[in-house]
C-alpha cells in the first residue's frame, strides 16, 4: 500500500519522462547512491572494495555495454572481451605515447578505439542475424587477442606481451588505494549508466529497440538499419572499452591479452541474460549474480569442510543449477523478477 504512484500526478510530460517516475523509486536510488558514495567507502573492508565491489562495478559496466548491443539493439555478440581488450591496450598506449595525457582522457580514447573496432566488426551485422552473428562475433574475439599477442608495438615490446597499467593520477591526485579506486570506478559507472539510460529513453534507444523487435518494420518507419546497428555497436564497444580499461587499471594492474579471453566474453553474456536482456538494472543485477554467487558458494562449500575438490565441483554444479533455476522461475531475468516483485508490492496487500 505504500509503494504506488497513486496521488503522484504528473503535470508535464517532462515529469512523466523521468527515469524513475515513482517518487519512492527516486528516493531509494538517491539513498542507494548516497550509501555507495559515502557509507561504503567508510565501512567496507579493503577486501569488499577491491575484490567484490570494484570488479562488480566494472563488470556491470561491461554488461551494460553488451546489453546495449544485445539487449536493446538485438545483436547477439560474443566479442565483449575483445572490445574490453582494445579499450585497455589502447588506453595503455595512449598514456605511454602521449606524455601528460590525462588518464580519464586516455580511457575515453580507449573507449573510442574500441568503438572503431566495434564498427568494423559490426558491419557484417547488416546481413547476418541471430546465432550466426553471435558465432561470427567470435571472430572479433580471437582476432583481437591474436593481434595483441602478435603486434609487439601494442604491448610496448614487452617480451611476453604482458602490460602493466600505469598508476592512475588525476589532477595530481593518485587513485592508488582500494577506496579511491572504488570511488573512481563508481563515478565512471554512474555517469555512464546515466548516459545509457538517457539514450535508451530517447530516439536512439527507440531506434535500437525497433531494430531489435522487427527490423523490417523499423526500416519502413524510417530508421536506417545500417546507422542504427553500427551506432549500437559503437556505443556498446565504447562502454566495453572503458570497462576493459578500468579492468586493467583499477582492478588487475598487470594484464596479458589472455586475460580478455573468450571466457570473459561468456561471463559477461551470462550476466546480461541472468540479469535481464534489455534492462539497465539487469546489467547490474546480473553482474552481482555472476560475481557474487561463486564467492558465496565457495564460502559455503568451505564451511561444510568437504574435501576441496568435492567442494569445487559441487560449487560448479550448484552454480549451473541455480542459473537454470532462475531462468525457469523468470526467463526474462532478475530485472523482471524485481519488476514483478514491485508490481506485487504495488497491489499489496491484495493479490491482484
Amino acid at each position, binding site marked *: 500500500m505504500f509503494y504506488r504512484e497513486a496521488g503522484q500526478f504528473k503535470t508535464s510530460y517532462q515529469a512523466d519522462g523521468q527515469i524513475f517516475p515513482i517518487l519512492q523509486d527516486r528516493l531509494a536510488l538517491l539513498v542507494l547512491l548516497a550509501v555507495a558514495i559515502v557509507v561504503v567507502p567508510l565501512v567496507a573492508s579493503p577486501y569488499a572494495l577491491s575484490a567484490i565491489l570494484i570488479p562488480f562495478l566494472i563488470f556491470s559496466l561491461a554488461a551494460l555495454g553488451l546489453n546495449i548491443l544485445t539487449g536493446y539493439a538485438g545483436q547477439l555478440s560474443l566479442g565483449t572481451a575483445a572490445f574490453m581488450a582494445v579499450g585497455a591496450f589502447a588506453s595503455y598506449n595512449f598514456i605511454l605515447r602521449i606524455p601528460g595525457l590525462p588518464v580519464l582522457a586516455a580511457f575515453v580514447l580507449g573507449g573510442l578505439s574500441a568503438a572503431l573496432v566495434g564498427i568494423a566488426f559490426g558491419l557484417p551485422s547488416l546481413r547476418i542475424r541471430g546465432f550466426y552473428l553471435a558465432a561470427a562475433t567470435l571472430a572479433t574475439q580471437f582476432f583481437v587477442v591474436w593481434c595483441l599477442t602478435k603486434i609487439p608495438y601494442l604491448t610496448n615490446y614487452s617480451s611476453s606481451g604482458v602490460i602493466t597499467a600505469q598508476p592512475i593520477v588525476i589532477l595530481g591526485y593518485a587513485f592508488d588505494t582500494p577506496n579511491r579506486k572504488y570511488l573512481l570506478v563508481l563515478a565512471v559507472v554512474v555517469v555512464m549508466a546515466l548516459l545509457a539510460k538517457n539514450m535508451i529513453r530517447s530516439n536512439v534507444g527507440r531506434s535500437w529497440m525497433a531494430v531489435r523487435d522487427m527490423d523490417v518494420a523499423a526500416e519502413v518507419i524510417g530508421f536506417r538499419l545500417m546507422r542504427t546497428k553500427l551506432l549500437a555497436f559503437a556505443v556498446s564497444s565504447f562502454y566495453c572499452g572503458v570497462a576493459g580499461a578500468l579492468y586493467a587499471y583499477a582492478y588487475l594492474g598487470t594484464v596479458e591479452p589472455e586475460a580478455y579471453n573468450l571466457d570473459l566474453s561468456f561471463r559477461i553474456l551470462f550476466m546480461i541474460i541472468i540479469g535481464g536482456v534489455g534492462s539497465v538494472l539487469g546489467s547490474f543485477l546480473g553482474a552481482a549474480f555472476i560475481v557474487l554467487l561463486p564467492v558465496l558458494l565457495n564460502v559455503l562449500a568451505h564451511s561444510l569442510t568437504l574435501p576441496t575438490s568435492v567442494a*569445487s565441483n559441487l*560449487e560448479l554444479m550448484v552454480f549451473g543449477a541455480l542459473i537454470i533455476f532462475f531462468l525457469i522461475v523468470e526467463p526474462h531475468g532478475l530485472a523482471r523478477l524485481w519488476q514483478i516483485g514491485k508490481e506485487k508490492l504495488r497491489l499489496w496487500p491484495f493479490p491482484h
Partner: protein
Amino acid sequence: QPMEQYIALPSYRVGPYAAGGSGFYGGIIDYFNLVNLSGGVNGVKISWEECETEYNPSRGVECYERLKTKNGGATLVEPLSTGVAYGILDRLAVDKIPMTMIGYGRSDAANGKVFPYVFPLITSYWNQAAAMIKYLGDKDGGMDKLKGKKIVHLYHDSAFGKEPLPVLEALSKQYGFELIKIPVTPPGSEQQSQWLQIRQARPDHVILWGWGSMNAVAIKTAQRNGFPREKILGVWWAGSEEDTVPTGDAAKGYSAMTFNTPGNYPVMDEIRKKLYADGKGNLADASRIGSVYHMRGVSAAILWVEAIRAAQEKFGKGKRVTGEQLRWGLENLNVDEARLKAVGAFGMLPRVKTSCDDHEGSGAVKVQQWDGKKWNAITPNWIVGDKALTRKLLEESSAAYAAEKKITPACLK
C-alpha cells in the same frame, strides 16, 4: 596473535587445468600435514586455506583478497597461474605478502630489487630455455655441433609461450642454429598443420613449450605424422603424467625438463606411510603420489617451510613470522644438500640459495624421459644454462619495468 603460520592457497581443482592443480596443491598440503604431524616448524603449526580460482584471473584476485586477511593475515601466497599472479602482483608490496611463482610467470621477477615480494623459486623460464639449449648441445656432442641445426620452438601462443623467445633467439645467434617458431593457438586441441610443418622442416629438435591439453595433442599428432618423439623436448609444464598418460604409447621416448628428479625419496615414503595409510592424504587417487605435479607441490612446500625456518632463526624461534619476515626468509634461503637430506628430499630438487639479487636461487634443471609407464631422469647431473645471458636479459627487462612503474630498485631489509 594466532600461533599458526597461515598460508593462502588460491587453488584450482575444476576446469581445464584441474589435473595439474589438484596434484600440485595436493603435494603442498600433504607436506604441510607431514610437518604438522611432527609438531610444526619449531612448534609453529602451519595452517592454510584454499579457494577455487578456476584458473581465472578475476576469481583469483577475489580469492587472494579474501584469503589474505584470514587467520591473522596470510604470510605467503602461491596461485600457480600466471594470470592470477599478474593480477595480484601490484598488491603484494602493499599487503606485505610474499608470493612464489615456482617455475612460471615473468622471469625478470627474480630481481628482488624491483620485485621484492615475488619469488620465482628454483628456476625461471629463461634459465630453463638456456638449459634446454645446453642439454641439446650436449646431446649432439657439444655446443659447437648446434651450428646449422634446426630447432623448432612449438609454443602455446600466449605470454607463456613467448616468454623464452629472447633467450632462444640470443642463443640461436650465438650458436648458429636455426630457430623455427611455430605457435599453437590455445587450447591447441588440433595441431595437424603445425606438425605437418614440422615434418616438412625436418628439424633436429623440437622444443615443446606447451601447457594443458596441448601437450598430449602434440605428442599424439607427432605420432600420427610419424615424427620421432625422441626428438621432442618439452618444457616442464609439458612433462607430467597428465601430459603423457593420455597419449598411451605415443609418448614413449619423449623427454621433458623438470626441476624434480623422478624417483622415490624418504619424504615421499613418509607421506605415504603417515598420511595416506591413515586416509589423511590430500589426493583422491593414491596412485598419484610421487607424480610430477605432486612432487612439485611437495618441493614448493619444502622450500616454504625452510623459509619459515630461516625467518624464525632471525626473528624468533617458535614464533609465527609475519609476511614481511617470511619475505626475508625467502630472500635468505639456503637449502643445501644437508638441509635436503634432513628433510628427506635429497636429489629431488636442486639446492636453492637466494639473495636480494636472485630470487630464483638456482636455475638448475634435469631432463626426464617417459618410458611408457613413468618418467625417468636421463641426466645424472643438474643442468645450468648460460646464466650470464639470462642475467643480462633480466637486468634489462626489470629495469624497463621499474622505469615504467617508477620504482627505484633497492633491496629491502
